């Protein structure tokens, strides 16, 4: 039997994702890729492999999986309720999934996008140089029940049973932005009001963009709705016709005609992607030197991930007898059986 992962049940918005397809802007194709790039780095560190390998991205809800062969897995991104053969499984960790075992991943406990990585990565066919689905462009598709995903060969002698410290990017917070070519279209007092505002993450967010609803009056550029369409990039904060803010994400369009008040730093974009509906976000403008420092620090943190691994105290195969010690809120034995 070929090395594969079978999906016995699939949440409504699961897709294979990797780092996307940069370099196609001129043909109108945005880079796409994982909504939370940090999660790819975490999965790579946990499995001791490259962050260019494809994983399954699960929006808000996971699924039920079975491996055809023994394989290593890692669970990253938004913490989700997970169980292996009915026994709770730690998130932010790597584990063995033995042939025929049933892995259940339930709803997100915080954040939006959870990731399931496998040793060797998912080996779905490449389209235009990458494996990730670009749903807005019609490349690949949402994963459905019954799918059987090929898994690439894992390196010899690799281990599982590691964990990373929990991250805090799953509940909103403050993100940093730099000014851009269209920032000047907004009056100074409008920018000040924007920086002081609290935004609520609207349920309508997806891989293309995340809508942020301001607590007070909406925002408006002086140029209104008649500006020329222009190159847009992930992180751009568009102010749409009704005055709300739309942050463009990995799978956003390549050009847009709504005025943009600024651009959120790449290192802070996972925090926007992972802010669950109802979470509060704020935007703080920074000058380029501070932005660069933040980005350098984030890169250093990504590179240091493998040095922050710790061994799980118990082998995951022995987790069953730890059920009575499970203290994570909302997780109790058996209630993930469906």
């Amino acid at each position, binding site marked *: 039997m070929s090395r594969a992962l079978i999906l016995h049940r699939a949440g409504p918005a699961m897709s294979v994702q990797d780092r996307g397809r940069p*370099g196609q*802007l*001129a043909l109108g194709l945005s880079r796409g890729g994982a909504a939370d790039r940090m999660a790819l780095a975490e999965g790579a560190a946990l499995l001791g492999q490259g962050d260019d390998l494809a994983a399954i991205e699960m929006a808000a809800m996971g699924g039920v999986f079975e491996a055809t062969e023994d394989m290593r897995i890692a669970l990253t991104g938004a913490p989700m309720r997970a169980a292996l053969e009915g026994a709770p499984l730690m998130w932010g960790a790597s584990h063995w999934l033995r042939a025929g075992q049933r892995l259940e991943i339930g709803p997100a406990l915080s954040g939006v996008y959870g990731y399931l990585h496998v040793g060797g990565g998912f080996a779905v066919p490449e389209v235009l140089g990458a494996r990730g689905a670009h749903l807005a*462009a019609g490349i690949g598709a949402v994963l459905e029940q019954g799918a059987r995903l090929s898994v690439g060969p894992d390196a010899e002698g690799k281990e599982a049973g590691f964990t990373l410290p929990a991250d805090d990017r799953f509940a909103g917070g403050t993100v940093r932005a730099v000014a851009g070519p269209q920032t000047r279209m907004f009056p100074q007092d409008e920018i000040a009001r924007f920086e002081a505002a609290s935004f609520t993450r609207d349920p309508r967010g997806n891989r293309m963009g995340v809508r942020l609803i301001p607590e007070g009056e909406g925002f408006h550029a002086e*140029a*209104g709705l*008649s500006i020329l*369409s*222009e190159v847009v990039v992930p992180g751009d904060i568009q102010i749409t016709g009704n005055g709300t803010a739309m942050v463009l994400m990995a799978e956003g369009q*390549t050009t847009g005609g709504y005025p943009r008040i600024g651009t959120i730093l790449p290192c802070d974009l996972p925090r926007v992607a992972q802010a669950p509906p109802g979470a509060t976000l704020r935007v703080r403008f920074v000058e380029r030197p501070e932005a660069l420092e933040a980005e350098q620090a984030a890169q250093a943190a990504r590179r240091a991930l493998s040095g922050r691994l710790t061994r799980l105290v118990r082998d995951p195969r022995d987790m069953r007898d730890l059920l009575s010690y499970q203290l994570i809120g909302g997780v109790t034995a058996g209630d993930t059986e469906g």
Partner: protein
Amino acid sequence: MDSASEHKPGEFPRIAFLGLDGLLVSFGDRLSEPANRAALALRHAVERESWPGVEETTASLVSTYLRFDALAEDGAGLRARLAELVESRDWTTAELPTGRKLWRVPAVFGTDLAPQLEEAASLAGVSMDDAIKEIAASRLRVQTLGFAPGQPYLGELPENWTIPRQTDLTPRVQVGALCVAIRQMTLFSVSTPTGWRQVAQTALRLFRPEAEAPFLLRPGDEVLFQPVDRAAYERLRAEGPDGGAVAEAIP
């Protein structure tokens, strides 16, 4: 109210950072043939320069964008190099690309397939019949591909079509939807929400990820839309992804 259009001519071309890792050279704040040509020509020149750290380039309607590795390359240095190149010549006198094509694309105007024809015609100050005639008579140029894969911005329509986008988004238009805003049209290559008003529907698929040549149009190509009735549209749609579109070389 339109502060962006009050800049003196001397303010263009203008260079600005776009995000942490991008630079944008704008040749104007409204669409013009020279500005579009300048954007395309500068992009090709930047490609030829092959500066270290530059990861990709593109041209939109009136601007050239380059993305660089912000952690490896000093943005200020790159910006200075770009400014030098921009000032080295008058990019608005550049030639259009060679090897362009003229496409004739059948389209159903109005009906339940394109319910905003009446609203758009009214904003343009013409009857629905005249709206169809004006659009069909306009030989539209692919000024850039963008928004979605292979999707063209087409221009320009007559002056009376300077109509704004809608305040609210249309929740979803279908692949092949022909929509209008600000003297431009776009032919959607994907199904998506939009702020543009839909006036017609075609059966043409502009992006075919599974095909050997996934992208049909190139910047500089020209397009004529030919009104057909619903029955003809349904027939063309059943025939395949070309939707009855035919292309000929522009001499």
